[in-house]
């Protein structure tokens, strides 16, 4: 079962919605347990429904991403009762950390590949919902794995795609300001490759529009 045994699991991260736990020996494998914990403030009936729904939804997204050719962690077990997903622990580094140590050429190549993968998700009407460099892992053997689809959704809308890419840009701006331009441009190049010039242009237009909305104007001026 998800609770594997009585041994203590180490907490990787306590999010607002779920706890991420690390199990070094889940039937001989290193696994991550994503457990959506009950929220005392919600009526239990509502709480259970929300957690069950989101657990199932996240699985659908993870699975669909794979079908689209975007690597996501292998799922080992779903415990609906415990609203827990047991999945592969992906060995590697978040792109957030990896970017620093790369040469310019490697950086651009990596970002281009990331852009291609985002393009594949969007072409399959899948929106990641939390595209940051922390949620993309560069594996030890050079692969790229997308994680945490907890805020994801299925959508064909331009707006949703725009928000997705905009978030990516914002993540780059906040943590990798020295090479935002070069990274984002490379991502867009890769994205274009997959979705085509016309669609990419529309999505980029949306990204610009989103940037210009009140909420972010102040930040643009302050820069």
């Amino acid at each position, binding site marked *: 079962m998800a609770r594997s045994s009585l041994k203590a699991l180490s907490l990787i991260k306590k999010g607002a*919605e779920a706890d991420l736990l690390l199990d070094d020996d889940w039937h001989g494998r290193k696994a991550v347990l994503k457990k959506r914990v009950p929220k*005392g403030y919600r009526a239990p009936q509502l709480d259970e429904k929300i957690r069950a729904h989101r657990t199932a939804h996240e699985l659908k997204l993870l699975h669909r991403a794979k079908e689209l050719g975007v690597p996501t962690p292998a799922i080992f077990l779903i415990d609906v009762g415990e609203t827990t997903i047991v999945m592969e622990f992906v060995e590697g580094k978040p792109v957030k950390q990896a970017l620093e140590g790369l040469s310019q050429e490697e950086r651009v190549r990596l970002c281009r590949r990331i852009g291609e993968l985002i393009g594949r998700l969007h072409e399959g009407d899948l929106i990641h919902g939390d595209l940051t460099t922390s949620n993309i892992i560069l594996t030890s053997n050079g692969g790229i794995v997308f994680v945490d689809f907890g805020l994801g959704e299925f959508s064909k809308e331009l707006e949703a795609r725009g928000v997705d890419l905009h978030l990516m840009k914002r993540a780059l701006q906040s943590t990798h300001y020295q090479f935002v331009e070069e990274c984002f441009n490379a991502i867009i190049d890769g994205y274009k490759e997959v979705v085509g010039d016309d669609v990419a242009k529309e999505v980029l237009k949306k990204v610009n529009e989103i940037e210009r909305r009140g909420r972010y104007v102040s930040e643009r001026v302050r820069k």
Partner: protein
Amino acid sequence: MYCLGIESTADGFGIGIATFEGEILANVVSEYVPERGGIHPREAAQHHSKVVGSVLKEAFERARIRPKDLKAVAFSQGPGLGPCLRTGATAARALAVYLGVPLIGVNHCVAHIEIAKLVTKSQDPVTLYVSGGNTIVAAYEAGRYRAFGETLDIAVGNCLDSFAIEAGLRRQGGLPLGAIVERLAEKGETLIELPYSVKGMDVSFSGLLTAVVQLLRSSHYRLEDLCYSLQETAFSMLAEVTERALAHTEKPEVLLTGGVAANKRLQSMLKAVADEHGAKFCVVPKQYAMDNGAMIAWTGVLAYECGMITPVEKSFVKPKWRLDEVDVRWLGVR
């Protein structure tokens, strides 16, 4: 040293007087109560213009000060309903020019946060500001109150009020519609499934309203159960986004402000969120929860002390003025 504040963003017309030390000497509110339905902006503005004189007089009497004792006149410059804002702004300009004191345009949302911080003595909270016109989760970050999450369509108070009006509920004995929904909800027994819409840090209430109104019209459900389910669903969404903001910012306090802050069920949910993250829970007292002049007066003091004066010729109202467009210089160093 005193500052007078005029609030007139929607259905309430209020005048408050605050000392520069943060003591509230007067807080008089006159509410426009529509015969039926929701707020008609022009009718509300007409009500405000009728009561300006009497409310002003009462405020000075309560505060036991004379007009010439004032150091500044503040007014809610936005966001809000245009006609209502203009009435308050006109009164403020006239008073400031007549007395020869500076005019200060105050952001209504910032004022809701500042008055709540003043009276609850909170320092650096994650704030959930909920009212008939606004629904925002905000926290201070680098010079401004940043909106971490907000409604994508209607405000939660608007959702509750619209439902109440659909259900034919009327205000009784000075109780706002939201309070009547709250009373009915306390008698609810069955939780009915309604759309729960959280998108990242943002919330959406329009689908929820449509759904609950449809169920109401079907006449298959008890009104008490509908009120209960509506509250549970809407407030759970708010608690969730507040929790996300709290987990993200790791602030030490959770502050609940705005008209809907008076709701006991919402208070208990937010307290649970705060407890879980080891944060202190603060809620604004009732007289400062609804729109009021005291919050404008106090925020006027803060702005005045930082030299944030609004020249009369630049005192146009801003019906869509966002919370995060304001430099809150009084919170000092970056």
